């Protein structure tokens, strides 16, 4: 897990590099809640580009962070959510509550198709 903080715009970006299950979700939760509160950020972005696995523990983890950020008056966004993760987020209704921005991912896929 890599966190990037843009001081000027107060944006915290979290790039998840591990598989998300109950075990790793606990660790991400602990670390992230701390950072969200320290930085008092305006916007938190979860980047799923590098994710290879997520089960339903990810749903609770994402929703929990969303609630915290909202409570602190910030914005929350998920980016680069692949087809499989989207299915899980759709099933649980997360995509109806949280903004999912897949522009980057779509551009990447189009490039791949052209390459083929």
């Amino acid at each position, binding site marked *: 897990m890599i966190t990037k903080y843009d001081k000027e715009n107060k944006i915290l970006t979290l790039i998840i590099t591990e*598989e998300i*299950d*109950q*075990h790793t*979700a*606990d660790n991400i*939760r602990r670390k992230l809640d701390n950072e969200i509160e320290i930085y008092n950020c305006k916007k938190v972005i979860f980047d799923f580009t590098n994710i290879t*696995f*997520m*089960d*339903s*523990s990810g*749903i*609770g*983890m994402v*929703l*929990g962070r969303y609630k915290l950020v909202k409570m602190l008056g910030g914005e929350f966004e998920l980016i680069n959510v692949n087809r*499989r993760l989207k299915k*899980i987020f759709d*099933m*649980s*209704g997360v995509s109806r509550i949280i903004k999912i921005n897949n522009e980057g991912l779509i551009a990447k896929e189009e490039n791949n198709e052209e390459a083929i």
Partner: protein
Amino acid sequence: MKKLYDNEMKLEFSSKTCNEAFARIAVAAFVSQLDPTIDELSDIKTAISEAVTNSIIHGYEEGEGTVKIEARIYLDTVQIEIIDNGKGIENVEMAMKPLYTSKPDLERSGMGFTIMESFMDEVKVESALGFGTRVIMKKKITPKEDIDEDNLLDEKQKEDIKNTLGA
């Protein structure tokens, strides 16, 4: 015709969340002999992760215990059982409802069984209060179109004949 094999594996590990990755990867490795697609393998891994998490978080309530996994292959179908001797589920029907969770404080989403049901072909839950829970899941692995068992045998036979003739 070539005889299609039956195969079986059994796995036992401590009820610790750090074993979840091990469990799903081990099952995926076993299933890979059926030549599943990446999607099929991900479906199975996700379902295993859900069931194992349930055993650890709910069955043993994060206490000591052993989770067992038994996987069997019949023809092109894999059947996986996740077994614990934990506290059992009081109301299976209720537990399987989407978004129902008995542990909202742990940020559990209540989607575990729903995900198992949508990613696997069949999910059955047997549970007895105070004795434990057994989740039985089945998934058929789609045979690859370009592989025809009979043709494959013919090719082999042809090769055998060629070799015999050549020798």
